[in-house]
């Protein structure tokens, strides 16, 4: 039972990284029908931004000099703005020029962007080829529940991800901003006729999506205590697959898809003999299964949009 609970927790951690990335894919696809294949690399950038900003804050004496509840939110805000800004920059420079072109063009452009981002980190970050140690904000402290042991840092990151996902649901369902995003994804012309500036909404989508990817990057960095320049590729593919399994364009689908992939991968590794070696095979078999038998994903695409 302990083993089962431990594996469930591991699956939940992995799923939340997939969900945070998948939500971005789904937002972009919903808004302007594109697949942003460098989105996983934005997550990787988020982790590197965190390392750099943490190092800077430490060098300035902010971290030793003030309590954690003062500097941690400031640092988090700085990381969010920086990563969101990078995502926005990519949208302005790489994605916007191709908005009128066929979807395939954007796809190729973002694949290329991903390669450029990865290689730039490798070349220009000091010792960029090697894995980089991720700062451990919460030390070795943890909570013991019987035979189970949870690191404080992991619990905080998991809690933060869940909060963000709930906040996203509220943002999309309950606010004016969410209404504009939904309007643009339903019909961009009609939305602009009713006084919404679609360009602003698209920029906002990329800003928010990239922040979520950045959080995923920080989650990955702190969960594994390290980050490497090339992890974005795999997370990008997994995040995209999660969005497809859940139903591309559907916000709740991204959550379900991320959970599905994370749970299958983790439980296959833990319980199937030789499962670790073939965990990706199992995960992608599920993706293929959905593509063949239910291409619209678990939740049919944009169910709340077609009125």
């Amino acid at each position, binding site marked *: 039972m302990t*083993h089962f609970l*431990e594996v469930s927790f*591991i699956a939940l951690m992995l799923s939340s990284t997939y969900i945070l990335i998948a939500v971005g894919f789904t937002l972009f696809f919903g808004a302007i029908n594109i697949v942003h294949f460098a989105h996983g690399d934005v997550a990787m950038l988020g982790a590197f931004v965190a390392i750099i900003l943490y190092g800077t804050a430490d060098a300035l004496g902010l971290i030793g000099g003030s309590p954690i509840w003062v500097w941690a939110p400031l640092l988090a805000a700085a990381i969010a703005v920086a990563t969101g800004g990078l995502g926005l920059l990519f949208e302005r420079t790489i994605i916007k020029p191709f908005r009128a072109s066929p979807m395939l063009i954007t796809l190729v452009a973002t694949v290329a962007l991903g390669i450029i981002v990865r290689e730039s980190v490798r070349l220009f970050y000091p010792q960029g080829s*090697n894995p980089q140690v991720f700062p451990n904000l919460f030390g070795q402290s943890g909570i013991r529940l019987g035979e189970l*042991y949870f690191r404080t840092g992991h619990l905080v990151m998991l809690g933060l991800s869940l909060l963000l996902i709930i906040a996203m649901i509220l943002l999309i369902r309950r606010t004016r901003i969410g209404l504009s995003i939904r309007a643009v994804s339903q019909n961009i012309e009609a939305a602009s006729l009713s006084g919404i500036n679609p360009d602003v909404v698209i920029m906002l989508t990329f800003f928010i999506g990239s922040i979520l990817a950045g959080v995923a990057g920080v989650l990955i960095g702190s969960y*594994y205590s390290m980050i490497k320049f090339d992890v974005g590729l795999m997370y990008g593919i997994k995040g995209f697959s999660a969005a497809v399994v859940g139903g591309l364009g559907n916000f709740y689908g991204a959550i379900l898809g991320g959970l599905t992939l994370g749970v299958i991968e983790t439980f296959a590794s*833990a319980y199937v003999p030789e*499962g*670790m070696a073939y*965990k990706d095979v199992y995960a992608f078999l599920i993706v293929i299964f959905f593509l063949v038998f239910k291409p619209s994903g678990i939740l049919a695409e944009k169910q709340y949009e077609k009125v």
Partner: protein
Amino acid sequence: MERRTFIKRTGATLAALMCAPSIGRADKSVVKIGFIGPLTGPNAALGMGARNSADLAVRRANARGNLPYQLQLVVMDDASDPSTGVAVATKLCTVENVAAATAHFNSPVALATIHVFHRYKVPQVMWGTIHPDITNKHNFPEVTRVCATSIVEHAELMNFVVKERGYQRWSVLYDTTSYGQSCFEAAKKALQANGATILSEDGVPVGTQDFRPVLSRLKTLSPGPQAIYFGGVVTEAALLRLQMAEIGINDVLFTGVTGLDSDTFNKTAGNVAEGTLIVGKKAIGDDSEFVSEYKKAGYKEYYEASGPFAYDSTNLIIAAIAKAGPSDKAQLAKTIRGMDFNGVLGPTRFDEFGQTKTGGLTLKVSQAGKWAPWQGSDYARGARALPKK
């Protein structure tokens, strides 16, 4: 600003490299020696250390000036990728027309390029690959190797850990590349030969970040493992070691072979690296001539564990060229195989497969964030203790 200096420096280095051939004395004909290693990609640090060491060997031979030729090192990057390796090996053998080459850190790359070197009859001395098939499978007369195979590495490791230190119950993990597979097979054989029990075997794809599902399962074993072996390289090894500690597998010995022999492992795994035991590349004393010459030459990168091997393999090629001349490649290959060479690693002599008979290995333990030779470490003296059994 930093990037500008970087570009300036790279430019300057490139310019210097382009001028380099013209520095040599004009009255001597040029003989080329090839070097291939990973200068970009995940193993770039090791590759650059090896490149610098090979370069040092050539520079010193030219400075001594007792050869009737000017030697020139032609450097190629295989990026740890077999297809790139084949492309640059072909270029070395055809366009560059090298007399011989010293090559490769990655076994999969070497397994691909031995056929190229065999086709063009160019002698190839391996400085860093450990897959047994590279020398044994085809036994090409062109192929030799100055470092130990995975079979030798694992025999040495398990002989010490199982027989001498008495760790009996093992869990084995390995990456699913041909390197990891060959490590796994050699480890299994060596464990069984020493009478140890293998409780679990798990393959992991390279790039795996989460080892926790498997580690969580290992915790349910009763009795649990006394030692965990990992057949793979640095990044995954560091992740595995970190997650062992996190999930609460304490007081279990962590071991591996030369794939872990880079201080990146100690840096990335941090405190929990302490007490990890490996069979590493032979440790060279800081007082050795190689180290002092390397420092004097002012290379930017550290020579890494692979440096002495690349240095010795290049010097071995140079000595063979001095003996047999550079033009008859078959004769040169034969001469290399018959060499009785003394270098920084000690004596190197090849068996009938072109494999060095002498070890070039050192048992190492992670101590205070560095790989320390077991002999003379705090652990050997009893000041620190390995995990209990």
